[in-house]
């Protein structure tokens, strides 16, 4: 990133009633960047966003905006706008007035307001909806109004708090593209919060994976996917098989009772490590040709491929393959060296027993219980 830093979080911490929400975070956001804060609910991503917006004051640490510390500046004075999770459109105002809301606070002529609102409406494809009641709009339309409303003041940074969470899948995909386009067109820095890893990977310039109030990894989507820093990131991003292993030497890892060649180095000899193998990187071969062998416990047709679960040394591997295998069939697997990714052990090691994939549904359930509190 060559752009200059627009927001810096320095050693920011926050806790509620003794429960640590943010554990001394450092984060730099650059101009024109599309940054995504990704993590399960309760990881502190929303709190981070709210600290930037000014709704939450950090216990310690500084929030710096364009080089100026803004800890004590209230939300309404910050050049940052937010698109809220459930849009938070003003129900007493129509579409036009909702978008014009921020402009009305300053003495701006009606003509200019009109021009800018129309410009925004055009950008979000809502021309002609001016006098509609916002309560009667569809979710996607409300979403657009919320974006237009947040952008009309031309903020330096736009914060988006799970803005697509309430939309159905198809609409979400469309909106992802649209958001990306808007970001490109306007050149505004987006900080986007989501727990949907697919969304994060497809839209962002930079992904920040968070868990338990800490930043686990910052990187481009490909880095995050291909080079997860620890078991948590590996698990959270995409599907993966995370296996305990030992690094015998540079380029030599041992796991599942077999020594594999790999591309990683720099570990101590015999250091215990976490090994990640993505399901699509495992090839199914006849048992005799396999590096490892196991019995197929289930096969599910997923359209593009089959999802095969294989029991190897009592660890269930997930394999995605276009070849069909029978359940209870004994098969072998083959893994290329570049498909093996070695990570240092962390507090998350061993938490993910069998193959694992982060469940959206579970996450949403825990969301609900959180709201109830």
């Amino acid at each position, binding site marked *: 990133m060559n752009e200059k830093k627009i927001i810096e979080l320095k050693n920011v911490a926050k806790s509620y009633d003794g429960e640590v929400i943010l554990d001394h975070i450092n984060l730099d956001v650059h101009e024109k960047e599309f940054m995504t804060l990704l993590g399960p609910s309760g990881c502190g991503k929303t709190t981070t966003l709210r600290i930037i*917006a*000014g*709704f939450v004051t950090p216990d310690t640490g500084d929030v710096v905006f364009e080089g100026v510390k803004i800890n004590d500046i*209230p*939300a*309404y*004075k910050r050049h*940052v*706008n*937010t698109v*809220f*999770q*459930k849009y*938070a*459109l*003003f*129900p*007493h*105002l*129509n579409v036009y*007035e909702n978008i014009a*809301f*921020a402009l*009305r*606070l*300053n003495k701006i002529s009606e003509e200019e307001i009109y021009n800018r609102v129309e410009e925004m409406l055009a950008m979000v494809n809502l021309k002609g909806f001016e*006098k509609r*009641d916002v309560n009667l709009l569809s979710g996607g339309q409300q979403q657009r109004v919320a974006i237009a*409303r*947040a952008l009309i*003041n031309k903020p330096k940074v736009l914060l988006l708090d799970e803005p697509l969470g309430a939309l159905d899948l198809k609409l979400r995909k469309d909106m992802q593209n649209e958001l990306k386009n808007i970001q490109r067109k306007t050149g505004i820095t987006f900080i986007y919060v989501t727990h949907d890893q697919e969304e994060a990977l497809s839209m962002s310039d930079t992904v920040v994976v968070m868990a338990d109030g800490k930043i686990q990894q910052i990187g481009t989507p490909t880095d995050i996917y291909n080079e997860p820093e620890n078991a948590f990131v590996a698990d959270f991003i995409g599907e993966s098989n995370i296996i305990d292993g030992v690094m015998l030497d540079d380029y030599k890892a041992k796991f599942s009772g077999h020594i594999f060649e790999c591309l990683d180095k720099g570990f101590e000899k015999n250091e215990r490590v976490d090994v990640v193998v993505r399901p699509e990187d495992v090839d199914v071969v006849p048992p005799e040709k396999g590096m490892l062998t196991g019995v197929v416990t289930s096969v599910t047709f997923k359209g593009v491929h089959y999802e095969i679960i294989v029991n190897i040394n009592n660890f269930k591997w997930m394999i995605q393959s276009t070849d069909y295998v029978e359940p209870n069939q004994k098969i072998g697997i083959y893994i290329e060296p570049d498909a093996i990714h070695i990570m240092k052990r962390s507090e998350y090691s061993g938490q993910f027993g069998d193959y694992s994939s982060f469940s959206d549904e579970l996450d949403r359930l825990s969301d609900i219980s959180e709201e109830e509190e």
Partner: protein
Amino acid sequence: MQRAAAAPHVVWAVLFIIAPLLFVVYYAFTDKNGSFTFSNIGAIFQASYLEVFLRSLCFAFLATVICLIIAYPIAYFMAKAKPKTQKVLIMLVMLPQWLNFLIRTYSWMALLEDTGIINSVLMGIFGLEIPPLHMINTSGAVILGMVYNYLPYMIIPLHSVISKIDPKLLEAAADLGCSPLRVLTKVVFPLSMSDIVSGVTMVFVPSISTFYISQKLGGGNFDLIGDTIERQFQTAYDYNLGAAMSFVLMLIILVSMAIMNRYAGEDDGGVVV
């Protein structure tokens, strides 16, 4: 068949809601011998009765405005408290209503009298020289009585609507550049408009028709519609005039409510200044 369950209520409503109102109209437009006349309605338009109506309107209006001004911040601050505290606060607001309103009004007399508790306390603070603050038997005391008795009916609906406002809306407003005061005027206030109307009704209607407060706290010097109606039935036995006054009172209330609903009902586009 299942709809028939409403039948007892319908019969009841016809007998004891509609029929009595018809009798009010009947008595209002007949004289003592039961023949049709406009003289009862006409009598109300004498200067003295007109003044009673005007005074009642005026007192009720002021009481309502004062209630609104006092209640709004209470409701607002209450809504800001923790949910548990809110529950207790609501309970505390409603608790005085469990005591008979006559006796509460009566104990205001003990507070407001020239030799009453407030004056005794003031004298205790400022010494004996100052003349007592004259509070009882003034129009202020009557309005105070109204405000006191009906304030909870303003607080409760306001609190319920303010506490239901999505806090995200307030954040959204702040995010878009509203100072706390502007959040209040541009978002909270317009959003609570509908319940302001219901609170206003719940204070205005009993205030304009009360007949006890003015007798006790106004010393009988500020005759209100309620007092006049009560007198027609309890001492003057002029049921016809009393019914005519009740009829006009109902009309006044209907008209004021219609105006208020119209005023608050216009929300397309919203009123935001």
